């Protein structure tokens, strides 16, 4: 489907205070701008309104890039018209014609904010019957094969057909810096991905050259500190963390049913450090860690 705007949904349930929300929005907007710039994607404007972000663009290359931006829950490429029933009807039937055929079943999902002479329900009924006439598809509100979404916001209406999942989490950079221990043959990509997903900027400490291509794809550019093999990597990481005012170190430790010494090893590491050590992978099963490692 062609589009002129991408609607971006964000927000965590825990995002309560107005101040936190503003900070979150600003950081998210900046991170989106950065990634679009980095990959030379084109856009005219980006703004926050009605608890959403709107990117005005027709560039298809923007879509896969939004999957890289933590904090985005979902997004929808949309076409825009005036918030008048006849305009909405014209646009949505045009979109439906391209996408829905008589073998399909469909539902119209409408929401509305602002003053209008019609209700959300009226949009559903009117547009649903128009689409039915034109496509000969049946209506099925509970489990349709296709959906048409109409979001009326004051003087504008957005029409779209899909909600694409984003990576969720919170915008990178909100929490500040965490230093990652990257060791060969360990799931450091999964660990770094998760720490970034929860808002941390990261820098890596390693003793040897590692393949960072996938990590860089997901996290963008980040600093790598290579330290001497003969030294204790945790102690070195702590030195770096203190220089950089990072508040935590993380590693890719996992917890398994079979290894009995997990906790003994954890305790040894904690004992030699004054900074906290985060283990973002211990709450996941092996399947999930594998999946994250092959991102």
């Amino acid at each position, binding site marked *: 489907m062609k589009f002129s705007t991408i609607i971006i949904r964000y927000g*965590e*349930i*825990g995002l*309560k*205070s107005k101040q*936190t929300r503003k900070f979150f929005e600003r950081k998210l907007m900046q991170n989106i701008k950065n990634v679009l710039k980095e990959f030379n994607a084109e856009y005219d404007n980006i703004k926050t309104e009605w608890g959403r972000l709107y990117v005005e663009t027709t560039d298809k290359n923007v879509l896969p890039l939004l999957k890289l931006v933590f904090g985005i829950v979902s997004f929808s490429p949309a076409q825009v018209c005036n918030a008048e029933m006849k305009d909405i009807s014209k646009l949505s039937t045009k979109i439906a014609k391209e996408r829905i055929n008589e073998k399909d079943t469909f539902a119209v999902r409408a929401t509305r904010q602002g003053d209008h002479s019609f209700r959300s329900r009226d949009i559903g009924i009117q547009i649903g019957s128009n689409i039915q006439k034109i496509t000969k598809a049946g209506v099925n509100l509970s489990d349709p094969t296709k959906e048409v979404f109409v979001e009326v916001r004051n003087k504008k209406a957005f029409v779209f057909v899909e909600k694409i999942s984003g990576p*969720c*989490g*919170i915008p990178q950079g*909100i*929490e*500040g810096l*965490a230093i990652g221990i990257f060791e060969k043959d360990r799931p450091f990509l999964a660990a770094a991905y*998760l*720490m970034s*997903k*929860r*808002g*941390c900027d990261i820098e890596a400490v390693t003793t040897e050259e590692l393949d960072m291509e996938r990590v860089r794809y997901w996290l963008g550019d980040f600093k790598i500190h290579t330290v001497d093999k003969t030294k204790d990597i945790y102690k070195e990481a702590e030195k770096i963390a203190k220089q950089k005012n990072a*508040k*935590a170190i993380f590693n890719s430790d996992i*917890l*398994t*049913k079979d290894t*009995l*010494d997990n*906790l*003994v090893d*954890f*305790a040894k*590491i*904690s*004992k030699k450090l*004054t*900074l*906290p*050590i*985060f*283990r*973002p992978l*211990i*709450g996941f*099963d092996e399947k999930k860690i594998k999946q994250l490692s092959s991102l």
Partner: protein
Amino acid sequence: MAKKARKVVSLISGGIDSPVATALMLEKGLEVIFVHFDSRPFTCSSVIDKTRDLVGILSRRYKIKPKFYMVPHSKVQTEILDNIDHKSLCVICRRMMYRIAEKIAKKENALALVTGENLGQVASQTLDNLSVEDATIKIPVLRPLLSYDKNEVIKIAKEVNTYWVSILPGSCCKFTPKFPETHADLKVIEKMESTLNIEKLVAEAVQNAKVENL
């Protein structure tokens, strides 16, 4: 020996997160000792019942007979309230819980603590605050939910059947200030704490803890 090396102390409240964190660690075959901080009258008394119910649900699900420490916490909280800048109440309250739980862990030969903490989910669980809280103690803190999104936690809570009890009324902590500290500084917090008799408070709490067998 093998058994001892799998023992942990889990800090459990009546909320959504800590039962899920504990469930994830039970899945991994860890032996869990439960610790609940009884904060009445700063919390409603229904919190105690909720917590007992949650421990019960987990015990049945994972077929365990856990030890359950009920630690009186309001005396510690009153001391904090009387002596500490209210903005930092939460951070210091949590540091006290960590200290007490670490003492219990030592007594029980447990190797780590487990909490439901999550990075960035609420304003008080920032990287800065978690860092300052973690610095209180020497034993590792396992935070299985550290990098989970809230909707993922809720999904597991429903799977392990704790969700429906966790969302019952009574999670209110009246101890929380209106604007809690979001970027705690270790040096500042340590200075504030120097007005408290920490050792005595911790020792008393451990001594007055009641062990319940469910």
